[in-house]
């Protein structure tokens, strides 16, 4: 394995979360809303967790913790973004469900042996649902500012892009690992073959971070041009 491949497999996730952390931190300079502060904290802890996961083996507990943290961090963001009380309640219900699932996992006697697909599927479905609720909110509250200038829209779009794109990976990764473990051919080569799938997920994570960064630049330069609409 080359150094680059090693980096891709073990540190692309903390790298992507680190980018998101820096971008949201940068955004809080102009928008000090608590939802952005919550995201800054979330991305900071996620970066540390994934950094640690790059060195640790087994690291499945760290991933489960990331899943819970993501639901709380992104849930807090949506809670503050939604205007409607019903939508806010949906966010609360979702975070409770995700936390309850995590707690049942924690109190299980044996440590996790395979990737927890169900936890990440709940996360993906929750984030996609909240993204749709956000889009509905935008449609029912049209402002005079173009949507392409709305950083919230781009952030939510990046989440929709990542979680919808990774859905099948989350759904099947645990099952495929179990299948591979139960087969007679659980070699390093075959495990690497499976990890290519996770690498695809990492690419989506990287693209979603680029999405956020690109939209920040877009909004910055568009707002600088006085005649652009």
């Amino acid at each position: 394995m080359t150094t680059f491949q090693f980096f891709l497999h073990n540190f692309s996730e903390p790298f992507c979360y680190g980018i998101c952390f820096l971008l949201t931190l940068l955004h809080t300079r102009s928008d000090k809303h608590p939802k952005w502060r919550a995201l800054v904290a979330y991305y900071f802890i996620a970066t540390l967790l994934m950094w640690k996961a790059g060195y640790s083996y087994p690291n499945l507990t760290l991933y489960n913790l990331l899943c819970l943290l993501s639901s709380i961090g992104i849930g807090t963001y949506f809670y503050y973004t939604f205007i409607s009380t019903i939508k806010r309640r949906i966010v609360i219900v979702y975070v409770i469900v995700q936390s309850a699932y995590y707690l049942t996992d924690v109190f299980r006697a044996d440590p996790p042996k395979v990737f927890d697909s169900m936890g990440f599927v709940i996360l993906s479905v929750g984030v996609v649902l909240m993204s749709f609720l956000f889009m509905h909110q935008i449609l029912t509250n049209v402002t005079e500012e173009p949507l392409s200038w709305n950083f919230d829209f781009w952030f939510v779009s990046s989440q929709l892009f990542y979680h919808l794109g990774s859905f099948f990976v989350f759904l099947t990764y645990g099952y495929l690992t179990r299948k591979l473990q139960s087969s007679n051919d659980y070699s390093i080569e075959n495990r690497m073959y499976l990890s290519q799938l996770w690498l695809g997920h990492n690419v989506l994570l990287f693209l979603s971070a680029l999405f956020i960064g690109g939209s920040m630049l877009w909004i910055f330069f568009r707002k600088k041009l006085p005649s652009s609409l």
Partner: protein
Amino acid sequence: MDILSQEIAIIVVGSAFLLFVAVGMIVLFLIYQKRQLKFLLEKKELSNQFQHELLKTRLEAQEEAMSRLGSELHDNIGQLLGSAKLLVGVAERSGASPEQFHVLDDTISKAIQELRALSKSLNTEWLEKFNWIDNLRTEANRLMATKEVTITLLHPSLINLSLDRQLILFRIAQEALQNGIKHGKASHITVQAEQNESALTISIADNGKGFDVNDHSIEGVGVTNIRHRVKLLGGQVSWQSGPAGTHLFINLPL
């Protein structure tokens, strides 16, 4: 491993499909919101135009009222006071009889009455109490006083429009009446208003010489003003014209 690679291929295809759906949804959403924003801005622009037109109409109405006031002061009250002064002069020179005093008293009383009527018409609250039917009747009487035209008004007892919209509608009717008299040389005009729960229909028909409704080059400021004002009220306007006269139809939503 072949089975696993097949499954991974399916997952990749499925993920690619979902990604395509996600990107497509974001793009569609951007386009839809852009259209919605355009509609909102157009609506706002129309509302601004309405306010502008309303202000213009109010100013025009006030200007007209001032002009009428000037004429009234000069032609009516001025004449009455002139007569009174003459009578006082006669009485001073030759001693006035009781009849002369009676005439003088009548003349001054009439002048006072006219002044009161004028003061009432100058009341700034008139715009707030604006009534399309009353004002149209006054306008019709004013035009008929020239003896060149007769105007028939057919209308319900009340028009279900806001005062602002009634004011703009009055200017439309006024413009149409003036067009009929000035350009159409009409001797008779009928103004008919009908309303139901959802719409108000105004029809203004004259027996003038008519004009070519398809020839936009001869379309004057009056016609353009009517079109513009009806659009601001959110209604529709159309003309039918021939040698027997012109018929204007206006349909306004309520």
